[in-house]
């Protein structure tokens, strides 16, 4: 396992994360997590609700620190916000008071690029995500799918080595979602960051990823890691009908199902108790 540890972009070793609950108790979100992501690898993390999927991302990005264990990005232990990381949040995190152009240009502007160069780059990225002509709109004037494109451009303009995505498309309707999956794959091919894509949707995970990590019901531990050797470039809207896809789906679902059932039983018990 640790032979090629230096060549991995993201490296988690024995990572646990505990939170104190408002009532004073301790809640363990992740327990003894070990995994790594190679450069340019697309890694999906699936698991039942409340298994600490999103917590993994906050640890890699440096928004939170692990309680035990180490998180390394590019061989450097994470402390403070990890440089070279992009993050796409589950809820809209585009700035509602900035125009579409200013939103996308925000990253370079924060990092000290001149307004002219930042705007130039932002225009280029807006073209790539298919939003040319929408530069002057405010986010509330866009549809949900368009806001996601803005968020994607906003992250990718910084040319991150690592892209972290927290159920980014979960708020979209099914059709828009598979369109966005296609767009994402397309953009990812262009810059090839390493990706951790958190989702509860197994179909989405297999469609996108090179590797699917299944977490157990909380506290999250790794249950099993699956390689997805479907050929690229993939077409998100059609790949799910292929035999290979269906075989992989049923294999991973076998593993995931019992965890989902455990998590579900827990919530219903809480409700009835």
């Amino acid at each position: 396992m640790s032979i090629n540890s230096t060549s991995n972009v993201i490296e988690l070793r024995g990572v646990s994360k505990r939170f104190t609950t408002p009532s004073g108790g301790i809640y363990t979100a992740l327990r003894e997590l070990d995994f790594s992501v190679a450069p340019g690898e697309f890694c999906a993390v699936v698991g039942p609700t409340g298994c600490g999927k999103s917590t993994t991302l906050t640890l890699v990005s440096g928004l939170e620190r692990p309680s035990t264990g180490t998180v390394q990005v590019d061989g450097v232990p994470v402390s403070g916000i990890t440089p070279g990381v992009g993050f796409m949040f589950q809820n809209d995190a585009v700035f509602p008071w900035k125009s579409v152009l200013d939103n996308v240009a925000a990253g370079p502007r924060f990092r000290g690029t001149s307004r002219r160069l930042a705007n130039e780059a932002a225009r280029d990225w807006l073209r790539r995500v298919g939003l040319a002509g929408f530069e002057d709109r405010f986010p509330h004037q866009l549809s949900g799918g368009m806001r996601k494109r803005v968020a994607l451009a906003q992250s990718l303009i910084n040319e991150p080595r690592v892209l972290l995505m927290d159920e980014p498309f979960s708020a979209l309707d099914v059709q828009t979602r598979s369109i966005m999956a296609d767009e994402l794959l397309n953009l990812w091919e262009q810059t090839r960051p390493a990706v951790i894509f958190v989702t509860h949707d197994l179909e989405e995970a297999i469609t996108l990823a090179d590797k699917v990590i299944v977490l157990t019901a909380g506290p999250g531990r790794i249950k099993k890691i699956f390689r997805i050797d479907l050929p690229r470039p993939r077409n998100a809207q059609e790949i799910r009908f292929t035999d290979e896809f269906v075989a992989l789906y049923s294999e991973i679902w076998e593993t995931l199902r019992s965890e989902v059932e455990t998590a579900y039983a827990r919530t219903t018990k809480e409700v009835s108790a």
Partner: protein
Amino acid sequence: MTQAKRIPDLGSTEPTLEVPAAGGDDDRARARELRRRKLRRRIWLNLARIALVVAALGSWELGVNTKHIDPFFWGQPSGVWRQLKTWITDGTAQGSLGEQILVTLQEAVYGFLIGVFLGVVLGIALGRNRFLSDLLSPFIKVANSIPRIVLGSLFSIAFGFGLTSKVVLAIVLVFFGVFFNAFQGTREVDRNLLSNARILGASRWQATRQVVLPSAFTWILASLHVSFGFALIGAVVGELLGADKGMGLLIRNAQNNFSPNGVLAGMVVIGVIALVAEALITALEKRLLRWRPPQLAGDAGI
């Protein structure tokens, strides 16, 4: 296959643009009818409002004429109107009416601007800094609970009858409202937006200026409406307590001359100033909150 097929329905989904009356004369006629009905309702509403004012002032005037209300104590609308006319045409005992208004306005505006500035800066600073807010919050709570208007007496002793004492009183009155709103607004900033800014590379100062400030602005602007009223109160009360010019002095002189019409006329002038300021602040609010969806940014209806 995956090469960027541009999605055909993208351009057509623009939820906030007004839906044009597509489809024929029928819809257009209906839209016209709706508009007409709206206009008619507005006209009726305004007529009813005028009727309400006329009824209130009329019954007051009638009460005086039928000797039910003593104008020596309570004044009367026609007397107030005469007083205003005299002030405008002949000036007041202490100079022209315009000069009195300008003096009071100057005090109120200075107090307002300085008070708002201090309130916003301190509110955001304490909202962003846990230690500072824990350190200072008991003092601020105490300072907020004392009747600050009384400080006006102290200020007129310390700073004399001129501009300073009124401005300082106005600042003290304005500051707290703005401060608490700025503080709360800072506390309520969406964590996601802050995280996003940090990951995109924003420094703490950049995050404060570009995320916290605009986000807290909704709160701050809400407090400005009340605050200008407070600034005017500060200026006028300061003048009542001791001044050589201004609307407050005019009112006090009217009081000393047992002229209720003069007091009321002073009130009317200050009321007009407050309404104009309110309109300006609303315009500023509309301009600054352009980015918000219309159903949120629209007027509150009152």
